[in-house]
């Protein structure tokens, strides 16, 4: 964890921030700040020196300009649902954007919306529903996470298999740079000429500034949906079904796998979805689109599952059953959290053909470190979520969990994959960046950050290890950003 400990807060800063946002929106007391000392990732705690919550665009600009004037580092935060420690502010200012919840406009004709960064993902879909539209990227935390946070992390979700990730749905961002300058990235009203700065901004994890508004594409609600549940007696068989379906040219809207440990956790919880508890793996497959031809595709998908060894394939017969099948998947993390005090939700990607091998390897790693790994993931994308429930108050168990996760990350890198598909690097994945990228590549990432934030004040110490940046190395000698 970072060791820098700037002065906790001084009264001048507090007064000046309060003058912008009002006293109630500036937190300085330890007890109040404790709520902001972690995000969705357990095991990491870091208290901000001050937390400030602007309620309007103008207040946000004024706050960031004040921080620029004073040369103070800050960490942007949406709903704090991130799973990589990206929103942790260790002794610096925390800038919460969750009060910026205005949906500025919905343009049904062009299927797009302009929203403030604090708009909750699912709220946007609700607001778009009367127009027959929805916002396609659907992280499991969609009832809480914000669009600003989604843009910062380039968030994914089950339906990204067909519809694409956040990057593919953002047309433009009005960004407030750490300097206080306001710039438009992308072009909502035509093609973008010049460098794709919007593409660089999406997924920059709060290091390139904060979004004041975001223009997103909305997707048309499909005419027809078919949700299938296939159960398998081996994970391997389920993985082969995934490959066969993908190779067929059918593009399911989503294709999610859950292993036995996950199924049992879900079925023992209030989110019980009727999954077969004796299965080694299930696939939850959704097809959507025009009604014409969808049943033919569903029949073929079921045949691919049976061909790969599925014991049974059932199709949801009504919207209620479909919702129930999905609730089990989306609340799987919650269900796991019920069995152990802490849950680390991991995120990595492997090439699709490596799924059977990597799942076997993850199982071996779990045995080696005596931890129980539950897998629930976006199988169609090869995007794994190996999760480990544990008790973070036990130093020994925490250490074994940490070692198991490191081994899993290395195995995914060795398989030609990557260390995060949708959760971001944050603090948690920093140690693996050097296993994945060369010094030259990390240096290029630092150089890009320096263009957006030459003073390195926005979300300092995240994403790229400080010590691996050649230029950073010279500038900041002994500072060391590392994991737990």
């Amino acid at each position, binding site marked *: 964890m970072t060791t820098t400990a700037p002065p906790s807060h001084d009264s001048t800063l507090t007064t000046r921030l309060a003058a912008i946002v009002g006293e109630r929106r500036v937190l300085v007391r330890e007890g109040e700040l404790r709520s902001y000392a972690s995000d969705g990732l357990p095991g990491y705690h870091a208290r901000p020196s001050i937390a400030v919550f602007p309620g309007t665009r103008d207040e946000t600009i004024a706050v960031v300009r004040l921080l620029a004037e004073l040369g103070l580092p800050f960490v942007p935060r949406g709903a704090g649902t991130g799973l990589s420690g990206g929103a942790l502010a260790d002794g610096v200012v925390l800038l919460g954007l969750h009060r910026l919840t205005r949906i500025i406009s919905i*343009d049904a004709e062009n299927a797009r919306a302009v929203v403030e960064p604090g708009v909750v993902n699912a709220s946007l879909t609700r607001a778009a529903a009367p127009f027959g539209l929805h916002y396609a990227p659907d992280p499991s935390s969609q009832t809480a996470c914000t669009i600003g946070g989604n843009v910062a992390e*380039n968030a*994914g979700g089950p339906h990204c298999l067909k519809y*694409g*990730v956040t*990057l593919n749905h953002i047309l433009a961002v009005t960004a407030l740079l750490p300097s206080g300058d306001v*710039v438009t990235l992308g*072009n909502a009203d*035509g*093609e973008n*000429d*010049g*460098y*794709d*700065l*919007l*593409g*660089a901004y*999406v*997924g920059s994890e709060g290091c390139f500034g904060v979004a004041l508004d975001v223009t997103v594409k909305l997707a048309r609600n499909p*005419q027809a949906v078919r949700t299938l549940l296939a159960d398998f007696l081996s994970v391997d068989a389920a993985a082969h079904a995934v*490959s066969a379906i*993908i*190779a067929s*040219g059918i593009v399911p809207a989503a294709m999610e796998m859950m292993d036995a440990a996950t199924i049992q956790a879900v079925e023992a919880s209030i989110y019980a979805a009727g999954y077969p508890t004796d299965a080694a793996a299930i696939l939850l497959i959704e097809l959507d*689109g*025009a*009604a*014409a031809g969808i049943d*033919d595709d569903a029949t073929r998908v079921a045949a691919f599952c049976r061909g790969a060894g599925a014991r049974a394939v059932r199709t949801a017969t009504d919207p209620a059953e479909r919702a129930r099948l999905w609730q089990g998947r989306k609340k799987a993390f919650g269900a796991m959290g019920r069995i152990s005090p802490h849950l680390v939700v991991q995120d990595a*990607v492997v*090439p*699709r053909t490596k799924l059977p091998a990597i799942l076997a390897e993850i199982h071996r790693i779990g045995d080696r470190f005596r931890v129980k790994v539950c897998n629930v993931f*976006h199988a169609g*994308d*090869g995007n794994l979520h190996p999760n480990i429930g544990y008790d973070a108050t036990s130093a020994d168990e925490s250490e074994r969990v940490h070692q198991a996760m490191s081994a899993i990350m290395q195995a995914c890198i060795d398989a*030609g*994959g*990557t260390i*995060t*598909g*949708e959760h*971001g*690097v944050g603090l948690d994945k920093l140690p693996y*960046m050097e*296993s*994945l*990228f*060369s010094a*030259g*590549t*990390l240096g*290029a*990432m630092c150089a*890009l950050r*320096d*263009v*957006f934030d030459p003073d390195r004040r926005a979300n300092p110490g995240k*994403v*790229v290890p400080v010590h691996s940046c050649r230029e950073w190395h010279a500038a900041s000698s002994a500072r060391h950003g590392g994991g737990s």
Partner: protein
Amino acid sequence: MSRQLVSDTAREVAGSVRAARENRAPLRIVGRGNWLDAGRPCRASSVLDIAPYSGIVEYEPGDLTLTARAGTTLAELARVTRAEGQWLPLDPGGSPESTLGATIATASAGPLASSFGTPRDQVLGCELVTGTGDVVHAGGRVVKNVAGFDLVRLNTGAWGTLGVITEVSVRLRALPALDRTFAVEMSAADAWQWLRASEYTPLAAELVSPAMSTILGTGASAVLLVRLGGNEALVSAAATSLVALGEVREVAPSVWDALAASEPPGSAVLRLSTAPSRCPALWERAAAIVERAHGSAHATLGRGVVRCILPVGGQDEDEMARLRGIIGALQHLGTSVVERLPASLWPSLVPPSAADPLSVGVRNAFDPDRLLNPGILGELA
């Protein structure tokens, strides 16, 4: 060990870039040479030839991903992937002998972008050599990846000015079971209404001007070319839904190759764009101007992009004055991105495309000595 290794291509290219740096001799990056008349004139003293660096580096069909050297042509990629029932759904205008590297560097897209997006949506990673001679591995080879800052998007469409692309990893798709194309005579407004309200998402829906329709052999009036993919039931239903709009004729899929190849060498080409709902109005006005100038046009309605192709009849003053008038009128209609233009017209007609402080900062970071394609974005030296 697990990090990506520097390819031989990158090693050689890095040597060339470092030599250019020492000699202060800027480089013109060239693939098959199909793009040399695109972009502003370059101030380069020597050519960096990427064409020899071709071939597939890694292709595992089950992963639906492929890595190839930058000099590999789109035709070669199509041949290799088709054998596995897959494709890279990118159909930029120009020759299929264009390279993958140039396609990514210029972010070139065609009608298929309507459903598959542009190169930024399909590139998973690339290896490149920056203007400082450093080798960078941006992104990776898997279909989802948010590790670190996105150098892939930054370099896609940067026209080589931030780095010489030496290898590219792309996402492939399985070929649809059926792939049929229909031509329907209809107005731009009706075409947009159909696209907007239809339950069907065509692979492509491209409106072509009468002149273009004549070139393609699809008639003498404006038509909407609709490319439908999917299973039998879906494609038939979608084709049937077109009947209400006008006379529907099935045309050979080769019409798309003909469209890509339809631009005479030396033409002036620019793309106008707007929000899709305003595209029919943009189309009507642009098509009228283009027709008077004896050019042709086609529009990807779903993206709101109109491509205008204007013949250039020589380099004399009168012809330049004529073109200046036409292009100025077109630019007046909306956002414009100019692709190809006689060299003398660039400075007066097109402002620099990367002159904002962030873009200048990016260029300074990756090519501080302006060694890579200098001038192509209209930037100051």
